[in-house]
């Protein structure tokens, strides 16, 4: 898979059109988000409406650390300052790891509080979490409050040309990581446990599956991946406002892409993202972003009613019926 990713990267690089990287970044970012959502949603059966929260936590960790780096000399006693200057500003891969850790902890915490309850309560709690975190961030002046924060993007990255290409490459790496993680889980003992929980949690418990523990693993892992996707975002966008980090499109797309693509396998979110993602990029440019979101919403409703297992499910059914003839 790494080979395919590298190949794709070089392919996109060839025409040297900056726009491809910009648009491609968003799509690849959604691959990570959709795959992460699916680990908790599709595999384990627990719906997360607050994907934006985990994404934003990653983004704001970066902003906080970047602001800290900028104000280092004002905030820290002189003795330590030179030492810290060696470390800060942190490189993006490090920021990604930190973003992942922060969001993972948030996921764990929230899971601990709410996973003992029914799936419906968990879903509502994720909504609540997103709003609470957004309110906290809006009121936190250090990261810019409601006004937003600027994060300056360096102009160039040695060896690769524009910084955007670097970000894109990183995001592709993350996507590969997410997809490989999902695929590994799917075929592992953990994956079986998730499936049992999704199918019938009570029976899973009776069969010996430690449901709470597995659910916590799923929530933490899913949250961490989303946080990792969010960490480079401030550099990508340059100016981060809470409304954009916590935007509704993250919640909707993280759900719509896996559900339309297919929730039962790692391929589903990928298919869903590529389809919906490209559709949206086109729609954004040709129609309007509001209509584009409307289409996503309608597609979601349509697929949920008609094709519960998504596109991958439809294809699998076709192949299965064909093999029986």
């Amino acid at each position: 898979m790494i080979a395919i990713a590298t190949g794709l990267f070089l392919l996109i690089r060839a025409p040297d059109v900056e726009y491809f990287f910009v648009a491609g970044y968003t799509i690849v970012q959604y691959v990570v988000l959709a795959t992460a959502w699916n680990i908790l949603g599709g595999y384990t059966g627990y719906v997360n409406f607050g994907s934006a929260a985990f994404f934003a936590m990653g983004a704001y960790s970066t902003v906080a650390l970047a602001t800290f780096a900028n104000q280092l000399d004002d905030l820290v006693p002189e003795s330590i300052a030179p030492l810290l200057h060696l470390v800060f500003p942190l490189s993006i891969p490090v920021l990604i790891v930190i973003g992942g850790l922060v969001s993972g902890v948030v996921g764990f915490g929230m899971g601990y509080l709410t996973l003992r309850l029914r799936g419906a309560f968990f879903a509502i709690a994720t909504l609540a979490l997103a709003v609470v975190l957004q309110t906290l961030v809006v009121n936190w002046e250090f990261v810019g409050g409601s006004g937003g924060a600027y994060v300056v993007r360096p102009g160039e990255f040695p060896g690769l040309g524009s910084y955007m290409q670097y970000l894109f490459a990183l995001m592709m790496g993350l996507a590969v990581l997410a997809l490989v993680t999902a695929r590994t889980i799917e075929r592992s003992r953990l994956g079986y446990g998730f499936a049992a929980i999704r199918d019938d949690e009570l029976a899973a418990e009776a069969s010996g599956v430690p449901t709470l523990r597995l659910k916590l693993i799923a929530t933490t892992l899913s949250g961490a991946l989303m946080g990792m996707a969010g960490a480079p975002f401030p550099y990508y966008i340059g100016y981060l406002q809470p409304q954009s980090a916590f935007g509704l499109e993250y919640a909707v797309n993280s759900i719509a892409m896996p559900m339309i693509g297919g929730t039962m396998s790692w391929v589903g979110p990928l298919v869903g993202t590529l389809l919906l993602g490209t559709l949206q990029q086109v729609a954004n440019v040709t129609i309007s972003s509001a209509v584009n979101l409307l289409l996503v919403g309608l597609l979601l409703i349509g697929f949920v009613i008609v094709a519960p297992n998504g596109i991958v499910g439809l294809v699998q059914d076709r192949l299965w019926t064909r093999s029986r003839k």
Partner: protein
Amino acid sequence: MEVSFDLLIGAIVAGLLLGGFYAAVTAGISISFGMLDIVNIAHPGFIILGSYIAYIVNLEFGVDPVIVSVVMLPVFYLLGTAIYQVYYLSFEKRGQESLRGLAFFFGVLFVTEVVLLLAFGVDYRYVEAPYIGPSLHFGPIDLPLRMLVPCLVALTMFAALQIFITRTFIGRAILAVSQDQFALQLMAVDPVRIKRIAFGLSIATASVAGALLIIIQPVEPSVGREYIGRVFAICVLGGLGSMPGTLIAAMLLGVVESITATFYGPSWAPAIAFGFLLLTLAFRPSGLLGR
């Protein structure tokens, strides 16, 4: 920070009035989630729809928003039954309510918001009515009619619902279906029909709630989302399906929100409801008066 007594009293009173309104907003969820176990997170979307309908009619014909909402009751009721039918056929029957049902309602909420956005844009809309503006004064207490009238209407609607559920046959059938579907079938009552009626009723309340909302505050499409947390917080805190509990929880939330807004500023308001919700879910999911 000095806590002025007058300010505190004012905040509490405002909170109670707000709480009455919140009770009306939550009534629908008490039915659909509390009694029917349907997580209709799209409910606030219907409330906003009600607000915009009241707005248009008020703008074009000058009709009082409350009257508009009453006239629209049957329309919303039918809308509710239609949606339940889709929900039932697609999900409940197949036993897949959890994941797909949630995604379905989320989609409905989202589509409603975007449609309103496309139709009306992001500007705040408000209605005109003779009671928006003047206030009653009782000593240190101000009762803005803008808040008082919705509160009274809300409480009336709430009381009417309570009477309907406890005194009429269909109302009691709804209570029964929430507790024991099988027993209902034995009495030759079709549970699906009862649930459909109940869900229609819950959406009908959104019509009134929407009109009241736009009297109290200006409305734009994304306001619905703020209310998701409030509505579920109140419903859970009050104990699922318990109407009296819902009322108490609504008042409580209204007062806490009001006091926070008065002394700490309005930007913390959204977090209050959702914070309440998280805390309740974490520590006392059966609510104050839960079953």
